[in-house]
C-alpha cells in the first residue's frame, strides 16, 4: 500500500534544505516561548518535536506552516523565504492540526472531495481507495458527526494518501487513533520519508523509525 510518491524536487537546488528556520523568536502572553531557535528539515527526514505542555510545539508548527505570523526570524523553503512563494509552499505542504479539518455535517467522501479540490485534481476512485486504506470502508457516506474522534482523524489521514505533498506537518496525529491506526500512520510516515518526503510531528508516542531526529523545546 505505498502512498502516493511525493514529487521529486528536481527543479529545486539539491543542496538547500527543504525547510530551514533560523533565529526564530516568539513570545506569547509576555512569555518567551523560544528564542534563537534554528532548525532544518531535509528530504527523507522525520523531525519529532518534544516538549512539555505549553512549550510552544503547536505554535512552532503553526509558524512554520505560515498560519501564525507573530514571530521574528527567517523561514525558508529550499533557500527562499516562504513569504515570497506562499502558493508553491502551500501546495507542497500538508498540515493536520488539533482540529483535523473535517466538517461534521459532511460525509468523509464530501470532506475529502473538497479538501482535495483545493490542491490537485483527484478522481473519485482515488478518494474511495484512500478511505478504504485508512479503514473507513463502509463509512464513506455516513455524516462525520456519527463517526468517532479516531475515525474523523482517519478521514484527515486519508488526505496524506491522496495529496502528493512533500512536507507533512502533523500536530499530535496519534492521540485519538487506536492500535491499528497507530500502525497505519507509522507505516505511512516511513513510506513517505523513504520516498523523499519530510515530516514534522509532535507526539508523546514513541516513534520507531530510523530516520527520526528529535528537537526538544522548553
Amino acid at each position, binding site marked *: 500500500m505505498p502512498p502516493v510518491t511525493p514529487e521529486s524536487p528536481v527543479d529545486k537546488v539539491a543542496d538547500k534544505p527543504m525547510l530551514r528556520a533560523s533565529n526564530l523568536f516568539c513570545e*506569547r*502572553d*509576555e512569555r518567551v516561548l523560544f528564542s534563537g531557535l534554528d532548525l532544518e528539515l531535509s528530504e527523507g527526514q522525520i523531525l519529532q518535536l518534544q516538549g512539555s505542555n505549553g512549550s510552544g510545539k503547536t505554535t512552532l508548527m503553526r509558524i512554520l506552516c505560515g498560519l501564525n505570523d*507573530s514571530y521574528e526570524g527567517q523561514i525558508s523553503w529550499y533557500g527562499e523565504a516562504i513569504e515570497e512563494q506562499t502558493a508553491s509552499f502551500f501546495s507542497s505542504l500538508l498540515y493536520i492540526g488539533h482540529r483535523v479539518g473535517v466538517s461534521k455535517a459532511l460525509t468523509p467522501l464530501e470532506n475529502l472531495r473538497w479538501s482535495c479540490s483545493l490542491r490537485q485534481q483527484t478522481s473519485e476512485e482515488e478518494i474511495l481507495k484512500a478511505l478504504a486504506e485508512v479503514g473507513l470502508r463502509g463509512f464513506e457516506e455516513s455524516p462525520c458527526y456519527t463517526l468517532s474522534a479516531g475515525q474523523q482523524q482517519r478521514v484527515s489521514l486519508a488526505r496524506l494518501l491522496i495529496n502528493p505533498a512533500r512536507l507533512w506537518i502533523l500536530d499530535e496525529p496519534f492521540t485519538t487513533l487506536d492500535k491499528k491506526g497507530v500502525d497505519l500512520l507509522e507505516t505511512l510516515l516511513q513510506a513517505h520519508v523513504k520516498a523523499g518526503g519530510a515530516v514534522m510531528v509532535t507526539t508523546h508516542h514513541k516513534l520507531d523509525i530510523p530516520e527520526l531526529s528529535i528537537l526538544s523545546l522548553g
Partner: protein
Amino acid sequence: MWLWFSKLGSPKWFYDLSGKWLPWLIGAMVIFLTVGIVWALLFLPPDYQQGHTSRILIIHVAVAGTSLVFFPLMAVAGVITMVWRMKLADMVAKNAAPIGAWFSFLTLATGSIWGSVSWGTWWEWTDARLVTMLFQFFLLLGVISLRSALEDPDKAAKACALLSIVGLINVIAIKYSVEFWNTLHQVSSSVSFSSDSPNGPEFLIAIIIMLIAVYLFLSVCLIMATRNEILQRERRSQWVQNLVRLS
C-alpha cells in the same frame, strides 16, 4: 531613513522624546484653552443673528473639527501596525479610540445644546453632520469593544488595525450617503472662513484659537495615554525598571 523609522518606532525613544515635549505642549494648551474659552465665553461680541448662543458654537466647531481626525489617525496607525508591525502605532491607536469616542460624544453633546437653543430641538435627524458624527461614535465604540473582547494583545492590535481601516472607508461612505440623504440644513454653521462674514473676523479668530487649543488638548491626552501604555507594556524591560527604581 529605515533607521530613523525604526528608531521612531521604539517605545523608549518615544517615551524620552515625548517626556521632553510634554511640558511645552501642556503649557501651550493651557494658554490657548484659557484665551480661547475666556474670550469666546466672555468678551466676544454676540453674533448678529444668534446672540450669545453662538459662543457654544465656537467650542462645538473646535471639538467637531478635532473629532474628525480620529478615524484617519487610527487607519494610518493601523496600516503601520499591519505592514511594519510597529508596536508604537498600535499603542497610539489603542488610546485614540476611547479619546475619539469621547470627542465624538462631546461633539454630539455641544451640538445638541447649541441646537436646543437655535433650532429649538435637542436632536435633529435632518442635520447630516450630526447623524454622521453619531455613526462615527458607534463605529468607534465597535473598535473599542472589539479591542476589549480579544484577549491576545497581538491579535487585538491587528484586528483593530483592520477594523479601523475598514471603519475609515465606512465613515466616508456614511458621510456622503447621509449628506445625500438630507442636505436640507444650514451649510457649515453660518461660519464662513472669510473675514467679511457677517460675524466679523473676531469670530473666526476665536474659532481658530479654540481649534488649536483642542488639538493641543487632544495631543496631550494621546501622548500621556500612550506613555502610560508604553510603561505598562514594557514593564519588564530594563529601562522601565530603571525608571521605576529612580523615582
